[in-house]
């Protein structure tokens, strides 16, 4: 379909155009088969969700969400609910008072390597 607005192409591209694209096409049977497949696919009913199905999906999502919420907030297995409740109501000073001195010393001894000289230097001398 040549037309008047054809611009001048570089010689290399112009000569290649004359050679064509080197492509061939399938036979008539291919097009008849693909037309039949396209008609069958086009006529197949689209998957539509009925109102009932949609409500069921919403209900299932809500139940799932409630279950997940319950599962996340439930106390760990074997935990006495009264203890968990008590922990929440205690202040940090009260909690600290419940730990004995040996445990605190053992913890400090275990962690002492992580202190650095800079931290010692910055720490106020109380004694």
């Amino acid at each position, binding site marked *: *379909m*040549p*037309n008047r*607005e*054809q*611009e001048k*192409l*570089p010689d*290399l*591209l112009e000569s*290649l*155009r004359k*050679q*064509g*694209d*080197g*492509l*061939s*096409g*399938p036979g*008539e049977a291919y*097009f*008849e088969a*693909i*037309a*039949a*497949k*396209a*008609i069958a*696919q*086009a006529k197949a009913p689209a998957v539509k969700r009925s109102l009932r199905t949609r409500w069921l999906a919403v209900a299932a999502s809500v139940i799932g969400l409630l279950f997940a919420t319950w599962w996340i907030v439930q106390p760990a297995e074997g935990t006495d609910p009264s203890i968990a409740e008590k922990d929440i109501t205690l202040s940090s000073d009260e909690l600290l008072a419940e730990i004995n001195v040996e445990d605190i010393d053992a913890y400090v001894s275990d962690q002492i390597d992580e202190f650095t000289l800079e931290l010692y230097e910055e720490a106020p001398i109380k004694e």
Partner: protein
Amino acid sequence: MNQQDLLQALRDPKRREQAFTRLVREHGPLLHRHLLRMLPAASDVDDVLQNTLVKVFRNLDRFRGDSKLTTWLYRIATNEALSWLRSNKRRSSRVGTADLSKLHDYQPVADPYFDGTAAQRELRKAIAELPDKQKAVFVFRYYDELPYQQISEITGTSQGALKANYHLAAKKIEQKLRAYAE
């Protein structure tokens, strides 16, 4: 059967399927060739052509004949091809393996519909590396020699932008071909 008769038959529910098969027989080769030029592999062409034809069949009532039938068919096929290329890029980037240009190196050899020369294969590779829309413009103009007016109707792009794109594409391809020749 001319276009008007074919359109009448396509609008008649009793004759629609037969007319559609005729339409595919007459215009299918044109669309197939166009998709072969746009897409990297023949197997992709089968899928994209089928999707195109499904859309054509479902929208036959919407085609009012304002434009040429081929323009309408080209528009649907080109949109399908561009959309396929976009989703293919997304898939490739998700997988993280694909350098499409490297894949293109091997496609023409493996393509059952390609039986061209080495130069034609290099041209095909160079076209495959163009940005998708530029590729469509180049293919329409270079191979099909469609007027800019019709390409504008197909792609929904202004004629000025089409001319600039075609010029740019031709320049890029020429550079690649020269590099190959040297």
